[in-house]
């Protein structure tokens, strides 16, 4: 069985698995990283959303063979010791209800803000509409993204 080396949340990891094994299961079952969730397994709900080289992607439909030598970041690797400003905004806007989709929502939002520090409502719609929240927290997700964006731009109104 092939061995795959990649960077996970800043650490180099090696795992043995068939090339086509979905990364979701490599992370959850072999590496014990459980912040990313199974919600559909077919890339339509966003509960597993994580980052590949800083861009949002779906580990449930990403074969592990495709991430060799690349940087994978899950919710656990986002804030380091503290909280990422998006996580802080999620707390300040009290976004979460059941919480199951929120790691994926946060990773999608961080990816959006990495390229766009002043997202319009349409930008948020485009970046976030592939992530389902069954508790219906969308209004607060939108508010949290705007709050995080203001803070990342260094505006006083974001404090």
């Amino acid at each position: 069985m092939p061995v795959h080396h990649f960077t996970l949340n800043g650490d180099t990891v090696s795992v043995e698995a068939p090339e086509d094994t979905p990364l979701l299961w490599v992370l959850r079952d072999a590496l014990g990283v459980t912040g990313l969730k199974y919600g559909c397994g077919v890339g339509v709900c966003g509960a597993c959303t994580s980052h590949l080289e800083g861009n949002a992607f779906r580990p449930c439909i990403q074969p592990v063979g495709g991430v060799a030598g690349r940087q994978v970041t899950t919710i656990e690797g986002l804030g380091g010791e503290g909280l990422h400003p998006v996580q802080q905004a999620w707390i300040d806007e009290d976004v979460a209800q059941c919480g199951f989709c929120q790691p994926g929502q946060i990773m999608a939002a961080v990816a959006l803000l990495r390229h766009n520090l002043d997202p319009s409502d349409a930008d948020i719609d485009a970046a976030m509409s592939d992530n389902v929240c069954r508790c219906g927290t969308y209004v607060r997700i939108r508010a949290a993204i705007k709050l995080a964006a203001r803070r990342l731009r260094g505006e006083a109104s974001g404090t």
Partner: protein
Amino acid sequence: MADPLKPDTAVPVVIDRRRFLTWVVASPALMVAVRLDSSFAQTGPAETEPASFNLYISIQADGRVVATLPRTEIGQGITTAVAMLVAEELDTLLDSVEVRTADADPRWLIQLTGLSSTMRYLAGPVRAAAASARARLVTAAAHRWQLLASRLTTSRGEVLAPDGRRASYGELARDAASVLLPEVSPLPKDVASYTLVGQPTGRIDARDIVTGKARYALDLSIPGALPTVVARPPTLRGSVVSHDASAALAMPGVVGVVSLLTGVAVSAQSFAQALAARDALRITWAPGPASHLSDADIEARLRDGMGSRPLPPLFTARTLEARFDFPYLAHAPMETQSCVARVTSDHAELWLGAQDPKFAQREVAEALGWALTPQRVTVHTTRAGGGFGRRFFNEPAVEAALVSRALGRPVKLMWTRNDDMRQGRYRPASHHRLLAYLGSGGSILGWHHRSVIPTVEFPHGFGDLLTSLVGTVLPGVTSQTFFALSQKVPYRFGLVTQQLREVPIPIPTASFRSVYSSQVTVANELFVDQVARELGRDAVELRRAHLSSKRLEAVLDTVVREGQWGRALPSGVAQGVAVHEEWDSAIAHLVEVDVSGAEPKVLRVVIAADVGLPINPRGIEAQLQGATIDALSTTLSAGLHIDAGAVREGSFADYRWLRMKHTPATIDVHLVRSDDRVGGVGELGYPTAAAALGNALARGTGTLPTRFPILEAGA
């Protein structure tokens, strides 16, 4: 749980005309248990040792406060609301309070999370227990300092003396545990003096959630637990005729294959391996009991069940009629059904997010042949990724227990999203006929609503909970009882009759957020608008003229004012309103929808709710916003189709729940407070959101929507 002490320590506390007994439980720290005292006839402490609890609170030597509840956190925010009440009554800091959800235990009086009842039911016991603990801590400090207890005060987790001495609750906990009778009042505070309860407060588990540390059943590390999935029949409740597992068993990582009543389970070293092996099973299926039924057949059965019209009241000049059809709905919580189980020869231990853990315990015990010794089954209640009624039933627990026993290994069993959509339980479809009887001059002489709905299955603990909420023992709780108790028409419409006719359809059901009101109230509120249109009256004015509830008048007036009912709107944009009273709460919705595009787009939602004492306004707002999204989703675009006994929809790709791009920019919530009774919140927001949207669509398009969801999949 330690055994309760003898009853001479039981202290009665009266809150909201209900009497609670609080008593200290033997423990190294201070542990106060509480139960609702049903024996009102007694004047003194209970005569027998209390053997059952509502909840208990302990104060540890390090000052941490732990409240243990027989309820489940499914996202509704009860742990935060309970922590707020505890911190308030104890005079301690919110972040020193931890709330644990209890294992299944027959000593819990009611252990079911549903009927929007948790805070309604538990606010009293929580206040009683926390106030009793505070009184004992103060008494312990008074004994230590040889001061009158009445001269001491409490603040931020400490008892304070007038001379400046202070002692933390942690230091006092052990002494307080031996205080037999408090020397200050063990009564809860006057609600008017609350400083934390009533303040918008963030979730106490928010940090765990946003860092990925929050653990759901499948995130727990139970050593050696094998990832397990189940191959399931193509039709609802189909069955296995035969299977050939030879190819699957030869695949890498596969540990075992177990045949179950519900399908064939595969356990492997990883879910990837288990899923691959599942697909390699060769199974011959027998069709399920609904395999002769498709949507048209079900609709015909529901319509056949309607029967003839009743006779109109005397002096009826004109009868208006409307009919409505609602679809089957999947609860589709984000976390699919899942359970971790470790079964040995004489004991089973399970971890799952059950809404009725005692039912899970009983079901698993029966499945393992231990019906007479259910205590051999331990059910740990975990955080759940959404419930909405689905987790009243525990199919994955039974499956996981059986697979674990067969393999002699712990297993973690997961339903796929397809399993969850296609082999689950559903809010049933329904057909409704409404009749309004008009007198000469446009008066409303009568209102008749007959609903034809396949029987809703209620869980084990439902009857006990309903009985306790109603305050009297019900002679057997059935769907008819619940319908009669829950379904009211809040208008003076003359002779009002509402009937439930149940039709047996062999498709599994489970109550869905707001239960019957998700159909019956929606139909009523849509028809109220239709009657107003027929009479040439304004929808708000007609409601105001007939409402029989002051609380509903107040919430309706609030959305009319805050939502600017009747304001000038762009072409193609329309407003709708609806009202509803249930769960000891009242609500009104105003929805604005744009019907000018290819699909309707909800622009703005204004909600006014009277939930009595709002324990956490921020959590209440979240619940009402979330229920609104559910209602908009299922009114517009999400519904199930049945094709020859199989559910067509398989994931969120074709079960079209609202996404960010469909969500209105604002869902404003205004709280109206008529009194200090704690009302229910979780289910409150659904019916009026759906009806107000339907009414707005009717005004915008000129056509009353009568079939839901309005946009069929793929439209």
